[in-house]
């Protein structure tokens, strides 16, 4: 019991350092630069070779993933060894619908559902890209989430941002900001 109280206090004290504030203003993520108009929280433990994850209101409520230049043959994120086989890797020749399928397999890996609502061409990162809108029912708590992703493949690398939040309130609350960020995003040549 004494041990678990000790661990708990260590965890509580350590919590603040799992996140670091980002914005407002210009923020760099590897080769990508975006303009943010409020402060977001970067989840430091999420950082991978090609991306990171942010949240506005907390991890259970909203996640904003950045994939800043996933190269051919790489996975979207680091993942447990046991799951690696089931999760596909990015290939430079992928069509937009195949990139969406790729994202879908990461989202559904834990048994969550995925329904694509819309897939349309847009300009993203200064080049031809696409936007996809989807819904997912998160396995761990059966919560209905909406999601939106923006992506482009440039110099054989995938640049993408994907935002998910509950259909109730939170998705709509931040959608305008997300669309603004997507518009502002540039990629270093």
């Amino acid at each position, binding site marked *: 019991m004494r041990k678990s109280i000790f661990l708990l206090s260590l965890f509580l004290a350590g919590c603040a350092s799992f996140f670091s504030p980002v914005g407002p203003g210009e923020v760099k993520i590897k080769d990508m630069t975006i303009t943010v108009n409020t402060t977001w929280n970067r989840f430091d433990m999420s950082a991978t070779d090609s991306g990171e994850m942010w949240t506005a209101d907390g991890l259970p409520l909203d996640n904003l993933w950045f994939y800043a230049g996933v190269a051919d043959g790489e996975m979207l994120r680091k993942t447990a060894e046991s799951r690696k086989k089931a*999760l596909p890797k990015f290939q430079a020749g992928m*069509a937009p*619908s195949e990139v969406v399928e790729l994202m879908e*397999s990461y989202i559904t890996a834990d048994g969550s559902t995925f329904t*694509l609502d819309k*897939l349309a061409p847009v300009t993203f990162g200064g080049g031809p890209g696409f936007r996809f809108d989807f819904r997912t029912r998160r396995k761990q708590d059966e919560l209905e989430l909406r999601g939106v992703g923006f992506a482009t493949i440039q110099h054989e690398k995938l640049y993408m941002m994907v935002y998910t939040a509950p259909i109730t309130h939170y998705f709509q609350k931040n959608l305008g900001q997300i669309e603004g960020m997507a518009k502002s995003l540039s990629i270093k040549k």
Partner: protein
Amino acid sequence: MEPKELQQYVAEITCRLAGEHCPDVRVYLVRTPYFNASMAPNGMLQLWSGLLLRMANEAQLAAIIGHELGHYLARHSVEQLRDAKSRAAFGQFLGIILSAGGAGGVALGTLSQLAIVAGMFAYSREHEIQADEIGLELMSGAGYAPQEAPRIWQQLVDEYKGDPENETTAGSVLFATHPAPSDRLTNLAELAKKMPSAGQIGESAFGKVLFPVRFDLLKDEMKRRRPSETLVLLDRLIGITPGDADLLFFRGEAYRMRNQSGDLEKALESYKYSIDSKRPPAESYRSMGLIQRKIGQPEAARQSFSIYLRLRPDAEDSDLIRSYLEEGS
């Protein structure tokens, strides 16, 4: 899962097998692309949709339900709970002794945990064999062909062997808690030989009831991302209903997903079979167009995309496909 007809159909088969126990058993269909069924001691029978997709006929479904009823009638879960309790006590005891010995308490603690779990698996394997026997008698007694029971396991073994990578990995959880499908197959086949060979198979009855949900179940199946296994399943299903446009479409999707050398050509061929068959899904045209676009056949891709948009003008990806047409393919 929603569909009432399927739910009712499964409930009727269950009653036919369960006889006087029918009012005690409630069937729940669970939508998940894996192969499993389970029975709780209170009569809650769960059937997973990945199992339904893999049944060739009504007799095979009856074999599964009969097996689960076998667990219920023999009160296996109650026995298992009691057993788990006594094993847990033993495991705790073992843990205390070992860690008191001073050497690496954590690792040895894990070891005694493992002993509990491994013991339970061995115990449950015995139960599986007993339930197989009861199930076979129930299905045969209800007039189904008992020879269909071992075939289920043959089908699973075939699918599993379809992916060469399975040789080197641990494989499905099912195979850990249950006897190896090949052992089970032999055991069931031996038992079935002693029973009347004639009986109801019900291939078309089952196919008809499953059909309204089958497209969605196949979509779920693709999400497992085991295209080599899925191809074995699809080839078997196509063998039952040759020229089925939906199955041919998904066979194309599985080849496209696997994407080994020569697979894109095989995918294209399968989509072509699909659209030459009766009532092809619009998606066959879209997927065909995507491959044609990739391998440098812009005119063919244009045609495929045009037909797709004519069939599904409001498709979720219609804007993107329209943009392909505008840029020339």
